[in-house]
């Protein structure tokens, strides 16, 4: 299926460089993130895709010596996410993240999802109930947990925990969701459930996903970016990248020819 027109921008990296101390991990990245589309980042380990992903919600701020150059513009308000006067906590309300391994808090299922809302100052029980339910439904796990909301989240299976983490990310109504290899610790069935969920979620939220699983990128994404050694080699429609990539390096990577 062809995507006919260019959708609206949700975010855009402009001349983005990133340094771990002296080490330049991202080299002049320019890339659009389209609104309510799934964009996959692929590339070999160490190519900078996770570094790039984490720049969006300012995860790198947590460690000293890390440094950004350039901009990540976030729309519709055209904020530069990397600007010093932008509060990372506020950014993370708008940009949720789901990690490789499910990382529920050692709290109840309910409290895991309510956490972000409480941090935001929401303590009205009725509002919390409503938003938690909505988020759990959005993450396609409501039916499995609705009768055990007060149980510890760690009692859930890996796949359920991951969907719980997605619900937690959804609870604050983010505009962009970052997925960092969300299924690499899951079995094929749980992986299928997450992929199905991604497909549902993109109706209301923009998604940026890092994956080592090329077929997964091909299945779930509308756009794909191939990164190598901190550079963005090729960005394009997923349909085109996987049938006829323009760059030989992309071709070699996706066909498994890279030594």
């Amino acid at each position, binding site marked *: 299926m062809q995507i006919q027109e260019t959708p609206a921008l949700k975010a855009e990296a402009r001349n983005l460089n990133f340094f771990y101390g002296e080490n330049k991990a991202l080299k002049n990245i320019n890339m659009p993130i389209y609104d309510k589309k799934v964009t996959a980042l692929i590339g070999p380990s160490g190519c900078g895709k996770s570094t790039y992903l984490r720049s969006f919600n300012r995860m790198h701020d947590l460690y000293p010596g890390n440094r950004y150059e350039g901009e990540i513009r976030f729309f519709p308000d055209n904020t530069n996410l990397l600007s010093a006067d932008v509060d990372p906590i506020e950014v993370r309300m708008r940009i949720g993240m789901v990690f490789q391994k499910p990382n529920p808090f050692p709290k109840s299922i309910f409290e895991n999802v309510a956490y972000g809302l409480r941090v935001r100052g929401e303590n009205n029980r009725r509002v919390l109930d409503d938003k938690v339910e909505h988020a759990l439904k959005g993450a396609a796990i409501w039916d499995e947990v609705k009768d055990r909301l007060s149980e510890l989240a760690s009692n859930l299976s890996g796949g359920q925990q991951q969907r719980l983490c997605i619900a937690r990310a959804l609870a604050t109504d983010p505009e962009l969701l970052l997925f960092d290899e969300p299924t690499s610790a899951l079995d094929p069935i749980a992986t299928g459930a997450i992929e199905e969920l991604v497909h549902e979620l993109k109706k209301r939220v923009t998604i940026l996903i890092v994956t080592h699983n090329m077929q997964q990128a091909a299945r779930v994404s509308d756009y794909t970016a191939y990164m190598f050694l901190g550079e963005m080699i090729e960005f394009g429609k997923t349909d085109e990248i996987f*049938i*006829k990539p323009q760059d*030989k390096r992309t071709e*070699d990577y*996706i*066909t*498994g*020819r890279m030594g």
Partner: protein
Amino acid sequence: MNESVHLSSQFDEDLSRLRTHVLQMGGLVETQVSAAIDAYATGEIASVKSIVETDRRVNELEKAIDDDCAHIIAKRQPTASDLRLVLGISKIVTDLERAGDEAKKIAKGVRRIYEGGHMPSQYGVGIRHLAEAALSMIRQALDAFARLDTELAKSVIRADTDVDTEFKSIIRQLITHMMEDPRTITTSIDIITIARAIERIGDHAKNVSEQVIYVVDGRDIRHMGKEAAQ
């Protein structure tokens, strides 16, 4: 086309074996077509049997290659040039198999004509010429596939127009002939069948060439007219 090797040497072997099988199959089809044309020219209807026999091997190879394609897709999930190669091959073998069927049709038509004692001498030159052109198209299409040569593939596609024109001209001659002398109708119909089969072989060669262009460039130029092959 990507010539560097895969991380999985097994995958390289799978793909290379697949290509070899296609070329083997193509070689058989080429032999069939060539033998059918010879039979037409010489009246050696003994070769008809071996053409039919070869067709069975061609059919088996078609199934075996399709099966290999399915296995590669299931096991390797090929992408980009690998994917195009597998998809292209799956279509190419269909055309090769059909070209083989057409060769069989020619052989059977030749047998009917000669067994009936009706020497088609007055059409020898026209049919022969048409057949040589179609045979050359099949050869070149297979060469284009073996070398992944899009220029050669394009020249095959262009050549198809000439074969079509020649075919129409032969049909016109035959119609005239049938009107002049109705006793020739039976033989003429057999010759029309043969000419039609030859013309179809040209079409299959053209289809193979279009797949070569898809495999190499990722461009699908089917049904786009001959301008696409310029």
